[in-house]
């Protein structure tokens, strides 16, 4: 299955990594400089899975050639092969890759009870980096023929079936299998492709699965039950099996991947799976809780690690270009306009949104267009995070022990494990966040959408390097960690935001940095303030919240903590949590104007800037 080389050199000095996206293949070079690993060069080229090339390695080699040209280091030999191992001025020791080309990994999952085995199956699939097209369950409120009709419409790369605890009832899960088999879901890769079915349910039902799926057209794989008992969830084996099937079947059908797999030193991972892995590695390494978000044109991925439990969600129709119209439909325009301090014509905005949807590659030219786009982004992120919180409930993650009593409570919804007060690090990636003209805008987008409570570090992925580092972590964790800290993340700063609500004008909290040496003050409820603290700087902050406010130690209790600076600094946010903007439009505009002034979100553009405002050509 794997293309992993058994002999990763012990003294690794140079690493090459690529991420084959749907449109662009991004390559980075990592070198050991003065004893630590640093990302040194990067290159990119169009992905070549489509005609006329229909071979992903062409794009990979083009991206590596670009690195070769800019770095002066010879990476490819005369036959176009990657030179290994590294010498003083040529080659690399490790080459690894991730891929989301061709729409990534698309799965259908099924379980018996929607809130239990089906939910566990969905978590396993999402955690492995898949897009879950639908979840079929006995109690999903659809009638059997409706379920069958749905299965027939889908074009999954594979199906994951779970159901039943080990040794328990086999009938229900067999019923589900009996719905799937005759529906004959047609795989994306044509009729010659045997659709992989992964069964991770009751061990006693395995023989039934062989009977149901034995008639050809399917490739049945059996792995450990992902819900061996009511109290236990065991997602690891199912996730591993998904990765194996991804490599064996899905990747093998993508043009050129057989060759790509043969030249990588670790199995190719689905891009979101790799991002999840690096976030888990970092959270574990630093002993923190972290949330990562990647907002794209079509989808938004949210990753979280709380108390060691990892969760990932994909919001399929929340994005900034293809899906922008859907964000507006879901959030509603008045809600989006809460974040806009200037008057805008609603009809024109609606047409603009649709024009962005049909011409997704355009960029905001005027400040007004940027303000609106960032307002939409806040709502897309907010909705994606809300979905994530609803999904990441108790009984999540691998091998978590629970009591039977907990299991019953889960059926009524389950408590979210995403706790904004416990959140230590919030990482942003994706065009609208990474390419915002000012980092202050990125920071405020994160704060307004995620509403972190207490003390939270904010960072962004500099050049979308997290996928590369995720797969690197599987072969060289030290290198992955060092590059992540030094080159991958751009620290924006720290957000301090007490939980609680008050009346405007009343004290919310007082603060001092390094005992007042670097500043101190008091914020009224509704205020926001930016304090400078540069990148690579740290300071000790003391926060005294007023009664009714909590910054992590409890109601009104003082917190002292060392915080990190960044390109933005320390944002002291006394607007309260949950963040409530004034309902009345003009009051809301005034509140946003204050934020914009205090943080310096949209400073006057340079006089020579092109087209400052919208209007006629004269």
């Amino acid at each position: 299955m794997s293309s992993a080389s058994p002999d990763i050199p012990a003294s690794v000095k140079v690493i090459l990594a690529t991420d084959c996206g749907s449109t662009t293949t991004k390559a980075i070079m990592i070198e050991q400089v003065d004893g630590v690993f640093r990302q040194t060069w990067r290159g990119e080229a169009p992905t070549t899975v489509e005609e006329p090339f229909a071979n992903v390695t062409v794009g990979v080699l083009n991206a590596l050639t670009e690195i070769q040209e800019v770095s002066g280091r010879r990476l490819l030999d005369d036959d176009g092969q990657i030179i290994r191992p590294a010498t003083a001025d040529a080659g690399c020791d490790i080459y690894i890759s991730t891929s989301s080309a061709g729409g990534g990994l698309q799965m259908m999952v099924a379980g018996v009870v929607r809130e239990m085995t089906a939910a566990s199956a969905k978590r396993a699939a999402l955690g492995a980096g898949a897009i879950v097209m639908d979840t079929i369950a006995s109690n999903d409120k659809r009638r059997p023929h409706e379920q069958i009709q749905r299965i027939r419409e889908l074009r999954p790369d594979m199906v994951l079936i779970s159901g039943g605890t080990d040794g328990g009832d086999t009938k229900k899960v067999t019923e589900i299998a009996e719905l799937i088999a005759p529906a004959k879901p047609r795989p994306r890769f044509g009729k010659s492709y045997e659709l992989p079915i992964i069964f991770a349910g009751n061990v006693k039902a395995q023989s039934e699965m062989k009977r149901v799926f034995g008639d050809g057209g399917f490739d049945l794989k059996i792995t450990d039950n992902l819900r061996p008992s009511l109290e236990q969830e065991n997602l690891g084996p199912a996730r591993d099996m998904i990765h194996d099937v991804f490599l064996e079947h899905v990747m093998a059908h993508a043009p050129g991947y057989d060759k790509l797999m043969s030249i990588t030193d670790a199995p190719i991972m689905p891009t979101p799976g790799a991002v999840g892995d690096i976030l888990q590695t970092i959270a574990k390494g630093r002993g923190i809780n972290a949330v990562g978000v990647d907002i794209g044109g079509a989808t938004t991925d949210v990753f979280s690690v709380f108390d060691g439990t990892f969760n990932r969600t994909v919001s399929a129709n929340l994005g900034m270009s293809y899906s922008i119209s859907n964000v507006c439909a879901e959030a509603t325009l008045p809600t989006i306009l809460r974040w806009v301090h200037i008057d805008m014509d609603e009809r024109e905005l609606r047409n603009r949104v649709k024009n962005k949807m049909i011409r997704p590659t355009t960029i905001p030219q005027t400040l007004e267009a940027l303000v609106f786009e960032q307002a939409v982004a806040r709502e897309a992120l907010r909705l994606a995070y809300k979905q994530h919180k609803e999904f990441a409930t108790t009984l999540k993650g691998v091998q978590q022990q629970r009591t039977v009593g907990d299991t019953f409570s889960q059926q009524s919804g389950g408590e979210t494990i995403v706790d904004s007060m416990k959140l230590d690090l919030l990482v942003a990636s994706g065009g609208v966040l990474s390419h915002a003209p000012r980092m202050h805008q990125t920071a405020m987008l994160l704060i307004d959408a995620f509403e972190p409570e207490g003390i939270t570090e904010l960072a962004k992925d500099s050049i979308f390097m997290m996928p590369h580092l995720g797969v690197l972590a599987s072969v060289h964790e030290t290198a992955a960690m060092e590059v992540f800290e030094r080159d991958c993340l751009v620290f924006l700063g720290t957000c301090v935001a007490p939980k609680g609500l008050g009346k405007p004008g009343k004290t919310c909290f007082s603060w001092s940095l390094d005992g007042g040496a670097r500043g101190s003050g008091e914020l009224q409820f509704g205020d926001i303030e930016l304090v400078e603290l540069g990148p690579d700087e740290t300071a000790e902050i003391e926060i005294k919240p007023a009664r009714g406010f909590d910054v992590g130690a409890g109601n009104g209790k003082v917190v002292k903590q060392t915080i990190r600076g960044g390109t933005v600094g320390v944002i002291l946010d006394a607007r309260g949590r949950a963040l409530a903007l004034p309902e009345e439009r003009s009051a809301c505009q005034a509140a946003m104007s204050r934020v914009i002034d205090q943080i310096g979100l949209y400073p006057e553009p340079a006089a020579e800037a092109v087209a400052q405002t919208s209007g006629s050509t004269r």
Partner: protein
Amino acid sequence: MAKAYTPGLKVTASTHHEAHRVLPIPGEVKVAEGDTVEADTVVAETFMDGDITPLNVANLLSAQPGDVPELMLKKEGDAVEKDEPIARSKGVFGMFKAECRAPASGTLETVSSTTGQIMIRGASIPVQVKAYLPGRVLEVLPAEGVIIENEVALIQGIFGIGGETSGTIMMACSAHDEELDAPAITPEMSGAVVIGGARMTAAAIEKAREVGVAAVVSGGIDDSDLREILGYDLGVAITGTEKLGITVVVTEGFGEIGMAKRTFELLQARSGRMASVNGATQIRAGVMRPEILIPLEAGKTADSEETNHTESGVLELGTPIRVIRDPYFGLIGTVAALPESPQVLGSGSKSRVLDVALESGDTVTVPRANVELIET
């Protein structure tokens, strides 16, 4: 650098076009290589597996799943009629027997002794593929379909709704910037491909639907009108399966925007000719834009009708382009300059830009990402 690459929509008076017409699953091809076909000629046909209707007989008869096979009155592979008894319980001492009737007609496909569930497969569903583009069968793809070729005028729209259709081109507007409203639609337009100018109103589309117009093509549409026609707010631009009874193609975009003059004139000059129109749009994953195909008059080839040639995808001085984002959305002009270094935009972003000489005589600077080539 005096060149850059940008996407564009094709608007051409004459081109060689090949339409791939394939079945979703293998079937029978009904035409032969070299045959001449019309838009509504069936070129390939197949039968999809019928719908499945599951029924849990064990539950209905209060029997053990393992007993179900012997309670069945029909065997796997037997034909069953709707409401026909298909299973009967043993009852108590031969009395009080419960019966289970077929919920649908079809064939009894499986009987499970594990779950007590049976599956009835309905009659196969015929699937036909029509030629869509009148022309000649260039190639037969065995068991899959055909490739049809013809010399056509091709106009790609930016967005559409509704699927494939065809009809005679009829002009409803006399200028490219004239709004298309309901009074311009007449009963004589039944079955026609109606060409408007600028924004088409919901009232115009509704009236067109009433009189049986096959397709409406115009420069723009308002988002609120689209919502009114569809009955919902379109979230993602994946269209083509709407059952509206009419196909709608927008050539420029949303808002009050006139059709590009050249596009309008091209359509106007072909008034009275047959056109094949498809509103299907898919912007994500493998961009698909709506299209209008107008076969050339018999005997004419792609080279015999006048056409301009620009290297596809390349922006250079003098290239005709359309601005596709505010504040100059919809304006048309030519590339006047391609400055090398990026410039700071009003938004504060740094981006590579170009100067556009507009039709009005003004020159404006816009990001390169915000223009679209008018392909010829």
